[in-house]
């Protein structure tokens, strides 16, 4: 698929929705910048009719046309639009690749018959994209490069297997799309069509124009090529439903989801799989695609449970699913699946209880977001705040061993609450330089220490350069970064004290580093609260 006027079409589409309609046939040019000069990056049909062309310096274009509308290029918006169109094309085949800046490659192998053959499919794709207000050209060929060249230079061609060469040969050398320099070289050599280029000897071409060019030519003429790498990984298992008439009412959508859940569950059952990541895709009639993902902590295939998770996720959406003019395709797919034994029907009560709790955690993750439903893993480190890390409950198995710090006769040696960021305490009066403080102030309250135990020296793990970054990961790290909670670079060691105040409060304090000869007092921090 080639969308030759993607940038101008984008603006025209937007203008059509605007209250006052500008004249749609006014010449319009999108200006891009290259080598510090403005040039014509894209242009609309009427500008083309007036003799402008792509790549022309903008000043020339302005000189030719008096009232030329010029808009700066917005490559990001174009890219986003192309992505959206690619999303929409997902309905034809799961193998869609972007061919930036303005092309799409669809691998329709084995998919065309679903749409009534290649010709009907191509017509259908082109018509629907054109109906959205895009100029579109397309072709179907044996290799992606051949199809690409044909779409641009012989719109609508469909080659039969093995006949790529015949279709490509008459095209002008511009179709090779091999860059200005090589094109000039070919022109100088007097070659005008691809057929003429192909007649030359291989060694000659390779010597003059590089081996990469030769491969490209071979592929274009029908040799084997490497497969497309699709934008999205191919789902293992899916079930989908197409609607001749777009559906918009909640009831219909719910019934369809129900049917799809049952169908998906059957597929999973047949394959002996359970889903770990469920993706629901809603293809809107106007081209927008909404995707909703639900993770599960344990392999799952019970349709009722799938449906419940999905509904919970839909209810929790910040902006609810907007059917617009209706959905014409709804798809459920197991983007991630795992071998699953028939554990859901197990009569083992323990197993059942574990499964029920896992399912509860799944539901809560679906509702509040997976980073909010957490469990803890123990880590082999001395840094107190990293010893236990809270990570999403669905992330993995939680059977790592926990090692208690205290001996049997000891009281708890670690606080049950730790401040996310140790808070500095002020007016610390320590009786001996290396001893515990006698008095301090924390959160506007003065405390007098009556008992203390310590120091317990916890040294930085010098073999880790940036300890906290390695130890916390994923969503938790991002959350802390956002809140500014990642600790500052840790000084060499901390001396921790367990103290009790006159009021009976038990705190965990530390001194940041040691007293030095230079007389600078180290700072003190309150890190945890004991019961």
């Amino acid at each position: 698929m080639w969308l030759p006027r993607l940038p101008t079409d984008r603006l025209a589409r937007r203008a059509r929705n605007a209250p006052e309609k500008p004249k749609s046939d006014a010449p319009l040019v999108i200006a891009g910048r290259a080598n510090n000069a403005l040039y014509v990056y894209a242009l609309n049909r009427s500008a083309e009719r007036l003799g402008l062309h792509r790549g022309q310096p903008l000043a020339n274009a302005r000189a030719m046309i008096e009232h030329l509308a010029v808009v700066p290029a917005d490559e990001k918006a174009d890219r986003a639009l192309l992505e959206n169109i690619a999303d929409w094309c997902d309905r034809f085949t799961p193998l869609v690749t972007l061919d930036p800046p303005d092309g799409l490659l669809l691998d329709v192998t084995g998919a065309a018959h679903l749409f009534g053959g290649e010709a009907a499919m191509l017509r259908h794709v082109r018509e629907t994209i054109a109906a959205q207000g895009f100029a579109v050209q397309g072709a179907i060929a044996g290799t992606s490069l051949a199809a690409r060249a044909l779409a641009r230079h012989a719109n609508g061609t469909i080659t039969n297997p093995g006949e790529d060469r015949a279709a490509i040969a008459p095209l002008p050398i511009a179709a090779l799309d091999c860059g200005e320099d090589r094109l000039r070289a070919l022109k100088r050599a007097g070659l005008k069509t691809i057929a003429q280029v192909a007649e030359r000897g291989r060694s000659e071409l390779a010597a003059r124009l590089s081996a990469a060019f030769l491969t490209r030519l071979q592929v274009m003429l029908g040799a084997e090529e490497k497969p497309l790498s699709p934008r999205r990984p191919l789902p293992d298992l899916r079930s989908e439903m197409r609607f001749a008439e777009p559906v918009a009412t909640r009831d219909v959508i719910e019934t369809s989801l129900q049917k799809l859940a049952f169908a998906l569950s059957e597929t999973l059952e047949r394959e002996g799989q359970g889903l770990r990541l469920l993706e629901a895709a809603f293809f809107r009639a106007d081209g927008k695609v909404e995707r909703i993902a639900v993770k599960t902590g344990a392999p799952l295939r019970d349709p009722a449970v799938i449906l419940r998770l999905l509904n919970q996720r839909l209810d929790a959406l910040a902006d609810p699913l907007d059917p617009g003019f209706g959905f014409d395709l709804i798809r459920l797919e197991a983007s991630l699946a795992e071998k699953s034994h028939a554990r859901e029907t197990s009569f083992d009560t323990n197993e059942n209880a574990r499964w029920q709790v896992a399912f509860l955690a799944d539901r809560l993750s679906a509702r509040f977001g997976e980073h909010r439903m957490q469990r803890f893993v123990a880590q082999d480190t001395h840094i107190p705040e990293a010893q236990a890390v809270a990570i999403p409950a669905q992330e993995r198995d939680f059977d790592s061993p926990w090692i208690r710090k205290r001996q049997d006769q000891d009281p708890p040696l670690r606080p049950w609450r730790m401040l996310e960021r140790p808070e500095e305490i002020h007016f610390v009066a320590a009786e001996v330089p290396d001893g515990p403080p006698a008095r301090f102030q924390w959160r506007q309250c003065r405390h007098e220490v009556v008992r203390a135990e310590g120091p317990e020296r916890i040294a930085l793990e010098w073999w880790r350069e940036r300890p906290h970054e390695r130890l916390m990961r994923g969503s938790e790290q991002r959350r802390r970064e956002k809140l500014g909670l990642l600790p500052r670079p840790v000084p060499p060691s901390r001396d921790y004290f367990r103290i009790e105040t006159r009021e009976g409060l038990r705190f965990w304090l530390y001194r940041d580093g040691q007293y030095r000869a230079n007389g600078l007092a180290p700072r003190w921090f309150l890190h945890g609260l004991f019961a």
Partner: protein
Amino acid sequence: MNKEEKLADLRHFLARYALPANRPAVPLGLPAADAVLDGGLRPGAVHEVFADDWGAGGFAACLAIQASKGKPLFWVRPDYEALEYGALSATGILELGGDPQNLYLLRAPHADDALSAAADILACPHVGAVVLELCGTPRALDLVASRRLALLCEESGVTLFVLREGAGPIPSAAATRWQVRTLSSDPRDDDWGSPCFHARLTRHRQGGLGDFFLTWDSNHGLFHDAAAHSGLVAAAPADRPVGAPRQKRA
């Protein structure tokens, strides 16, 4: 209505308060407290803990560890709790005798989310206990909400501890209500630092009230008498813990 019908009615009424056979009470370990509580804390009910200072919330943690033995313990708290009171530490729970592998933490965005999440969790009978930690008095926490939670508890047998910080009691459907302060450690104890609480039972649906000095035994998951080992008797000033100087409210 004849006499027998009336009796049957009364029995039926009383049956609601009797413990189902398959739900044994959770003994605190302190004989005096267990006597008042008729054997221990009632499972499948709501228990409120009002913490008067930084450490007193630990009482709820100890109770929850006790009530959830071997089963998952869900801890539900709104985000701002962590900023004010610190993050729940799994190593600390381990030191208290809990099992971090069975600890689930749900960080709800707001208090009303925390309440609805707690309701979801309480519906699952395979959960051991739930702690719902709330700071201040959120608007969503009213008598209706608390009664709803109590009904869910009763149905599933899961015990809910509502830990309230920086707040005073409001009408609720709780089975017990505890007003808790931390207590200084025994001055003669060398291994000082075990959690010590002065817990006042200020409300009890099925019995009397009381005033207890407790210390937590992390090894056995039980409370001991804090007044006994300090050699004092419970006849002490009502407004402050035995052996402790006058307290300032935090």
